[in-house]
């Protein structure tokens, strides 16, 4: 009788032993079997660490297998400069991708979804090693070439009575010979001068002698639009909507939905938001008409300015940056 009980007890212990030890062991083995080749990249909002790992190494010409998952909200993955489709990263789901880099360098990968007020802090680096096939290096940005201090405070008192009209400016342009306007239509001239500087130069020209101050402003608006194509204008608006609206607002006034997060009153809510001032107001003529496109490019490339503005240099291509700048000027110049 006692021996039967002992046998039953042993059997019961064996049964429970299988459960207690077998289940963890089974999960471990299943984990090993199912682990597909690839690096797991976990995404969480920047306040909780952003991308993990934050640095990934790869080699030129060799596939980089990545598995993405989000630990909180929906994120997106993209690599700056490269023209790759965005990958959505969903909470608790695994999304896989294969990348092959043809050039060595440091590539920035970033989140493409507005996941938190610090969304734009959510970046990582892919270091690609290997030999380069490209010999020519890209040109440095205009503000570097010209040695412009993009942090200098710039204001102008030269303010138009009404918002300069592009349409009216184009009509004025038709009455002025192309030759006289040639220096002002030069792209590098327009990008390196502020609207107020161009207005001042134009006002001293003989061919503007009959024009009122406002009409000269209208002419400035037309000049600013002279190198803008409908395609780049649309691309600029889309990029602005995706990347700038949250802080600068759809109307450019600097009152986007996250703007209050960057106001001094909110500082302290996050360690990442120390000493931050409000986003720039693109509708303010005093400040905007005093700066050149080269300065705006510099600010976009480098970021900072004590505003919480991220550096878009590693994210956007040169043409993307300029299309955004062209769109930003539409807040000063109407159709």
């Amino acid at each position, binding site marked *: 009788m*006692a021996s039967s*009980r*002992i046998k*039953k*007890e042993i*059997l*019961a*212990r064996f*049964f*429970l032993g299988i*459960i*207690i030890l077998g*289940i*963890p062991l089974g*999960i471990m083995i*299943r*984990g090993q079997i*199912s682990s*597909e080749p690839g690096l797991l990249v976990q995404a969480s909002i920047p306040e909780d660490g952003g991308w993990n790992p934050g640095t990934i190494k790869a080699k030129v010409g060799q596939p980089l297998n990545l*598995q993405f*998952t*989000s*630990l*909180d909200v929906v994120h997106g993955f993209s690599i700056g400069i490269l023209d790759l489709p965005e990958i959505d990263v969903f*909470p*608790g*789901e*695994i999304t896989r991708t294969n990348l092959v880099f043809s050039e060595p360098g440091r590539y920035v990968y970033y989140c493409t979804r507005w996941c938190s007020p610090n969304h734009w802090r959510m970046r990582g680096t892919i270091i690609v090693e290997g030999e380069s096939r490209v010999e020519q290096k890209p040109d440095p940005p205009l503000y570097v070439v010209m040695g412009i201090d993009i942090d200098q405070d710039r204001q102008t008192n030269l303010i138009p009575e009404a918002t300069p009209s592009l349409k009216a400016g184009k009509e004025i342009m038709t009455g002025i010979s192309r030759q006289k306007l040639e220096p002002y239509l030069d792209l590098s001239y327009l990008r390196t001068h502020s609207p107020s500087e161009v207005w001042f130069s134009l006002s001293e020209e003989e061919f503007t002698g009959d024009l009122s101050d406002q009409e000269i402003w209208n002419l400035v608006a037309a000049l600013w639009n002279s190198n803008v194509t409908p395609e780049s204008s649309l691309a600029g608006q889309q990029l602005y909507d995706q990347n700038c609206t949250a802080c600068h607002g759809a109307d450019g006034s600097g009152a986007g939905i996250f703007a209050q997060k960057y106001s001094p009153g909110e500082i302290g809510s996050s360690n990442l938001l120390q000493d931050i001032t409000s986003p720039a107001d693109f509708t303010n003529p005093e400040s905007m008409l005093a700066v050149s496109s080269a300065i705006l490019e510099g600010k976009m490339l480098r970021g900072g300015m004590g505003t919480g503005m991220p550096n878009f240099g590693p994210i956007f291509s040169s043409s993307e940056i300029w299309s955004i700048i062209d769109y930003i000027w539409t807040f000063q110049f109407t159709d």
Partner: protein
Amino acid sequence: MIKRNLLSNPFIKIGLTSRWPQLIGRGAALGVFIVVIISGLFGTPVGNRNLSIVLIWIAWWAALILILVPFLGRGWCSICPLPLPSEWIQQGTVLGPGTGNTRFGKNWKWPKKLRNIWLQNGSFAMMALFSAVILTKPAVTAWLLLGMIGAAITMSLLFERRAFCRYLCPVGGFIGLYSLISPVELRIIEQDVCRDHQTKTCYTGNENGYGCPWNVYPGALKLNTKCGACFECLRTCPHDNIAINIRGFGADLTKPGAVKIDESFKAILMLGSAAIYSAVMLGPWGELKSAAFSIGSGAWWIFAGSFLVINFILLPALFYFAVKITQSGSSSSPPIKYAFKAFSASLIPLGLGAWAAFSLSFIFTNGSYLWGVLSDPLGVGWNLLGTAGATWTPYLSGVTPTLEMAALVLGLIGAGQTAMRISNQDQKLAQPWPILLFCFGVTVGLLWLLVG
């Protein structure tokens, strides 16, 4: 309703008296809990993609409230895996007695002053205060379960029998209270047989089973509250004098002394918690939700303070006021505490109805998450059952509000019937109307919170 002894069916009798079916049930539940804990600790922190959150706080909780407790009383307690390690350590066996006395631990008696469910009221309230995080963060759920297993082990090493289940488990307290409604009861058949049985093996144990782990003498068992459905007394009674009866719903509620004062407060706490949970989890108040989540912040302290004040002061005071009115104008009124305890039995069906309505709201809305996590319990990309890609699909969304309303109305009807029966049975409690008004008011409030 005439009671029917389920043990008259030989299959049920063998199934419950044999130790193996229960061991297999407990083993299965333990296995699931192990997966839950591993998922919580090592799986994705995304709640709806992690088995620990979906299985425990959506599937298990809904099953507990909607099926197990209303129909089987403490049925869950009979296979609950949380006290198993502690019981094995304490008893020295996993299957049952008879392999030699290897009892381990101090075996102290539980302090007399704590022989009530005040600690369980406290542990439930503590859990509720942190519930926003517990219910959404898998790791917290896993640590909570581990903590409960650890507490059960600690208590089993110090005190005799299942002190944790009886006096500390935050879930066991309300399961016991709501099991008064259940249509299943374990009772003795003949009082005389127990009286004449000298050794009382149901309490002391013998070679066939342990003495009641819940520290109950089955011969004196009148209510479901304290019976843990462990079925040891079925095994230890040498006279086959234990029955498992099918009876009418709520049969225990109107028995004299059915509810003690600590249980009255438990009934009120459960009712208040259902309302607060509904407001936090389902309501449109973002600031309230944020306050419940931001543990340690000023807003959370206000939330926690309000929760405690509502459940331990405000609602009891309102109910006290209603009870007080029942006594006005009567010269033969019993002590207010007596009336408070007696009428608080009506809050038990009301509370269960409220929790059922709350559970219906999320099981149909979020139940579809279960298919995904069963296939990928850790949320790491597995597809064990081929259902990992199942998308979130609310079920029966068109009828859920109606079902919620039905649950609340059923609870109100149960509360009303209970109050009326108590009043009819006891001449000293002749005025149930203020209690009915209180229950009606609470139901209207819950309807507004849950159904809108």
